[in-house]
């Protein structure tokens, strides 16, 4: 198991190199650079040349990238060209707010999707099933900036239950979490439904019923647990997407999250902030996926064997014997 974890962490290194390379070069290819953002349009030629030299824009992009990666090897994500603050500090200020939002959205999605998906699967083909699927389709189709504004108008302006935006504690998370969670809920509901339908038809459930196990227990303890792996995968995916930042929702709710950090500084061509933020987000996403993979072993003990050295050896011996 430990080897598996270490292997997965080491695999993140080429991913980070690839991501940073792509971002750096894409930012460089985009027209405009940080120099105009820093000195404005009224700068003299001398100012522009001095700044180009200071930020390495009189050298090739490979030189700048090499310098950046050298700093990254020492754990230095660099400083923002605009704010002069360390990129790490800027990111870490926003990360907790993004995590709150991502977790909140996941909770909303899970609380809605699992009961809906199970009900839909158990009553497959019925009015309940069709209603759940229509709800799921609505959640998928609705633009979340539109839903966000509707929620603000109703629950903030008309009813006064929640703040309209900004980060100000627990109540401020609810509306944006519902906005994002509705889209996630749609995907999870459909996955839960199809996964449960596959499992419900299995013979061992018929056996359980024949042995007198209650229908509730058949569904929740036996069927759901075996159907949970794909659902867990989707939960992990959606959580990772949420951590990457939901830019539209963050804009509507003035949420100071990672998504807006990246977009705002892309517009300003602040390469260290964009590259650094995406690298950290990539790392966190990789770790989330690793945790999900490890959780498979908790949900299904058969998978645990595959991760361990003994398990691999056992499988090898069996293959050789065969």
């Amino acid at each position, binding site marked *: 198991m430990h080897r598996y974890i270490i292997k997965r962490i080491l695999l993140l290194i080429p991913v980070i190199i690839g991501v940073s390379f792509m971002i750096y070069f894409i930012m460089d290819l*985009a027209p405009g650079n940080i120099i105009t953002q820093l000195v404005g349009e009224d700068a003299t*030629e001398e100012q522009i040349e001095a700044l180009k030299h200071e930020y390495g824009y009189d050298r090739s992009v490979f030189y700048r990238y090499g310098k950046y990666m050298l700093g990254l090897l020492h754990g230095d994500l660099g400083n923002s060209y605009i704010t002069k603050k360390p990129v790490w500090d800027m990111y870490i200020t926003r990360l907790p707010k993004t995590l709150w939002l991502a977790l909140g959205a996941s909770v909303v999605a899970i609380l809605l999707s699992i009961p809906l998906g199970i009900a839909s699967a158990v009553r497959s083909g019925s009015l309940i099933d069709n209603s759940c699927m229509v709800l799921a389709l609505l959640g998928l189709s609705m633009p979340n900036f539109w839903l966000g504004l509707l929620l603000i108008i109703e629950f903030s*302006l008309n009813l006064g239950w929640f703040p*309209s935006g*900004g980060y100000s504690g627990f109540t401020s998370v609810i509306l944006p979490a519902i906005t994002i969670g509705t889209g996630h809920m749609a995907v999870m509901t459909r996955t839960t439904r199809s996964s449960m339908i596959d499992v419900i038809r299995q013979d061992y459930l018929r056996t359980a019923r024949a042995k007198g196990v209650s229908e509730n227990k058949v569904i929740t303890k036996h069927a759901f647990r075996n159907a949970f792996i794909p659902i867990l995968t989707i939960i992990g995916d959606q959580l990772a997407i949420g951590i990457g930042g939901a830019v539209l929702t963050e804009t*509507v709710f003035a949420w100071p999250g990672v998504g807006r950090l990246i977009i705002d500084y892309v517009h300003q061509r602040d390469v260290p902030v964009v590259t650094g933020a995406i690298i950290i987000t990539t790392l966190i996403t990789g770790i989330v996926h690793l945790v999900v993979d490890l959780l498979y072993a908790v949900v299904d003990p058969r998978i645990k064997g595959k991760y361990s050295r003994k398990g691999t050896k056992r499988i090898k011996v069996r293959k050789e014997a065969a």
Partner: protein
Amino acid sequence: MKKSIIIILSLMLVSAMAFAGGSGEKSSTSGGEVKYKESIVLGDGSQITTGDPQSINNMQHNRIFKCSHNTLVSYNSATSSYEPELATSWQWSDDLLSLTLKLRDDVTFQNGEKFTAADVKYSYERIMDMNSTASSKFVGVLDHVEVIDDYTVKLVLVSKNVDWLDTLALPLASIVNKKAIEADSLKGPWVGTGMWIITDLEEGDFVHMVKNENYWGGTTPTKELTFRYIPEESARLIALQNGEIDVCIGPADTEVEYIKSDKNLVLIEIPSATCCYFSFNTSKGPGSDENLRLALAYCINYEDVIFGASNGTGTRAVSNWGPVTFGYYDGFGDYKRDLDLAKQYLAKSAYKEILISVRDDERMRAAQIIQANAREIGLTVNIEKIEAAALTAKSAFKTAEHESMIYTLGWNSYGDDASRAYGVGSNTNKATLSDDRVMELLEIGRSTTDETARKAAYAEIQTLNHEHGWYLPLYYTGLSVATRVGVSGVIWEGHQSHDYQNIVATI
């Protein structure tokens, strides 16, 4: 069981009492009866990235710095005159190459340090070393600073510039404290001599300020100011409507009617100094052909452009100049729409097609209307919408590749501001003009104190522009701010660097 019920009921009673309190809104009184809010929140659609007044020069940051810092002089737009601030008086030398200022001796910085002439020298030298958007106002203009004594300073210029006082009044020329900056290079520049102390700044989120109890210029009943970044216009207005913010800076044009109909809100409409204009690249391509430029000038339906692009909130701009900028002149009159005249000009032009570059939706709408107008005379107009940074790069003076563009320029009050739009080498010179006569006139404008001569020079620039069609001014953008009823004490400026120092909100 009975005990459990008693405990639960007691907890409910305590909770009810805890939440039964009033709105929690703190107030302070002034002069006896009137109650004021202690904390005022402003919602802004532009984000703040720094508390260093010398590192940036734009309207959203200037609003902060006017609260936290002071300059040597300030500009009173109501009287169009310069007033003492940290300086009490000033005197130009006979050759207009140096300015000597006497300073206040009763000012301390927010960190307790005494303000002296050495701080002026340090501040201005720092600006010139910084290579920021603020630096371009000083580099090549200010030669050096001499400290005559603790409260007298002499500014020596590279060349004559009678509008130098306007630069000194800009927030970028705020005085900062050397000791604070040497102790903390990031937060040190936040320390000024102003009424408000920046206590917290989260980029892209908020700026929080508390009242400086030792401010030399007086006091205010307000104790806290917070500028919150709310990018979405509708959400910003909703926050105002439900009382989360007290001021909504820059509500959407489409929501002006909602604001007017809400009895809890006040709409403040301010004459704008931002001009939306059509600019040709006169150095090459279709824009270099005067006949094509004038063909377009006479075929545009300007009223349609104002209505369609600005939702009717703009006002017609006749001259490519700030409406309150020194030297404004429009004696040549407007381009009256004349399709026959436009066709005549087009017939003489070698070009029958032009590309307009824009960067946002409002300018896109203007371009689409112009495209339709141009079709009526047989001129093909293509439109491209590109990102702001890309358009800035495309239209830089030296390497300009654009054929034409629709852009905006916020005009300051001083005459030499025209150097940005008309001066050779300026990246704000989107027409890429290199006209010797214009440069002569700009030099006259900045090097004499004779107001008549200055006005005549600037009038000639504007007349030349009208005759040659380098820039086609379209409209001054609509500018409004929405506040809750009871908010007052703000000096509203056409260039949007509103002065919130003395803002109050009655309860």
